[in-house]
């Protein structure tokens, strides 16, 4: 399995370099705001990579992944607030619940195609949002603040500095990234791409399309749930509006599309670019209400229109061009 990674020398060197840079970066950064951006970048990388498995590889475009994000965030929040259980444990609970939700939803929904599937996932996410909105024991519309200063920081995953968050999140990003790379070269990866490319053809060569689509859906739900759990612990607060389903769901897709849908590196690159743009616009144009999202929307339109294959596709084109020479 790991041969897949070691065989690809270019990937290994690139990855190691990037990892080294990522690890020593905090030493050079003085402003907490920049650390904040890096932490958010990690979260969005996880979100993008997770979604990419069902949306990019399997080709089932879900516009409702905010549901799993919410489940992950709420399980950690509830666990800490009500029961003082560590998020290190609750994140697994969140992942299990998300996986079960994916199984229950996926059964009927994965049979749907195209727009119908997208709308159904949106409906599911909306259900989730309304349920969270009405869960009074977690503050309903106002949410809850589960900051806990009594228990040790490593237990609650609530640190006063940003660096610990960054390194913990980075670990998860690395793990998921490597898993994605392994999956990409494995039977699962090929099968998903075959299903995305031509489902009838895939069936005719013996691929159990239902099973593999379900697997992809479950994996994507679990990873997105993890991201939700981590984020909740970072901001130590949960409420249904943070989730704002369609916005979050679409931005999760956006991360993967901007970077390069269905590629290993795409969501990582996309997350970086998207988070930097959105946080930059938010801080620069904070004075005028709505200007930041306005600019963000315009940029999204421009990027998605002129780079349908994502940022990664620019590099692939260059490579192809060189080969011709």
């Amino acid at each position, binding site marked *: 399995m790991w041969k897949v990674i070691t065989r690809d020398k270019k990937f290994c060197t690139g990855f190691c370099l990037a990892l080294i840079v990522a690890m020593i970066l905090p030493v050079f950064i003085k402003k907490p705001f920049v650390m904040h951006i890096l932490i958010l970048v990690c979260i969005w990388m996880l979100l993008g990579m997770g979604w990419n498995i069902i949306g990019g590889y399997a080709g089932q475009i879900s516009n409702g992944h905010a549901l799993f994000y919410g489940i992950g965030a709420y399980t950690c929040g509830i666990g800490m607030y009500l029961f003082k259980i560590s998020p290190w444990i609750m994140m697994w609970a969140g992942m299990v619940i998300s996986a079960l939700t994916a199984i229950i939803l996926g059964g009927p929904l994965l049979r749907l195609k195209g727009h119908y599937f997208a709308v159904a996932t949106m409906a599911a996410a909306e259900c989730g949002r309304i349920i969270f909105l009405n869960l009074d024991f977690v503050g309903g519309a106002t949410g809850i603040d589960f900051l806990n200063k009594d228990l040790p920081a490593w237990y609650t995953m609530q640190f006063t500095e940003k660096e610990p968050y960054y390194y913990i999140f980075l670990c998860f990003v690395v793990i998921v990234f490597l898993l994605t790379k392994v999956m990409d070269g494995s039977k699962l990866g090929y099968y998903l791409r075959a299903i995305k490319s031509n489902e009838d053809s895939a069936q005719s060569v013996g691929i159990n399309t239902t099973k593999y689509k379900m697997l992809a859906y479950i994996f994507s739900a679990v990873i997105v749930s993890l991201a939700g759990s981590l984020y909740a612990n970072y901001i130590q607060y949960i409420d249904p509006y943070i989730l704002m389903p369609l916005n979050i769901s679409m931005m999760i897709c956006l991360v993967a599309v901007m970077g390069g849908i269905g590629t290993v590196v795409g969501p990582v690159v996309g997350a970086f670019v998207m988070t930097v743009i959105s946080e930059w616009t938010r801080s620069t144009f904070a004075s005028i209400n709505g200007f930041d999202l*306005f600019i963000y929307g315009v940029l999204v339109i421009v990027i998605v229109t002129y780079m349908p294959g994502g940022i990664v596709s620019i590099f692939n084109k260059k490579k192809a061009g060189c080969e011709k020479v």
Partner: protein
Amino acid sequence: MIIQCIFEGLIIGSILAMIAMGIALIWGVMNVLSFAQGEFLMLGMYIAFYLNQKLDWDPILSIPVTMAVMFGLGVVIYKVLISRALKGPVLSQRLITFALGMVLANGMLMLVSSEFRTIKEVMFTGTVNLDYLVVSKEKLVPLISSMTITALLFWFINKTRYGKAIRATAMEKDAAELVGIDSEKAYMIAFGISCGVAGAAGCILSYYYYITPTVGSGFLLFGVIAVALGGFGSIFGAFAGGILMGLIDVFAGVYFNTALKYVVVCVVFMLIVSFKPKGLFGK
């Protein structure tokens, strides 16, 4: 009581149906799921609002003007954005319409503030008292207006030359082009009409709903669900879906639980679409 519920359901449903039909038109003709429809609704509301503020026009009377303006806007947006988006992948098209919605909503937010506004005075006030039903004119007039617009839309799509051209392009683009229909123009008009209808829905909605730049997103979701419920691009299906959802909304709210009524709507939708993957009327 039931009749009251049906009435209320029809009002909400008819507006939802108008939004849904606009989405269905774009879905059916160009196979694009447009996430900006809620914002076109919002723009219609603001046009009605300002005409009411400056010229004391009743929102219902603003409909023709609003529809014309929104139609123009729709045509421009199609030419600048959508026609290019159509060449790309499906998800990119959705993302572009989503981002467009964001631009419109936030652009509006920048121009006006986010405070809620309402129409100050409408022309038709008071109530109509039928035996088993007390109907406020503020609700009856919107209902009649939306039914009228819906009827006009059906007439246009089914009876006029342009409408038939659009339907032909939707069903079989290449064949339509072979018989001399300009598919680009058909797409453009379809998009313009869908914006116009959303704008009209906005005027009608402003009769009794609050106006704010972000009002669109709630309606978008249910509009989209209504379309999927009805079935692929079927305008009638979207209409039926919208009405159905309005009725479920009201009945669930009254008999079940107001807070969770949207959950009921969504669950019903998911159940229906699980058994009929192409919608109730889908082909």
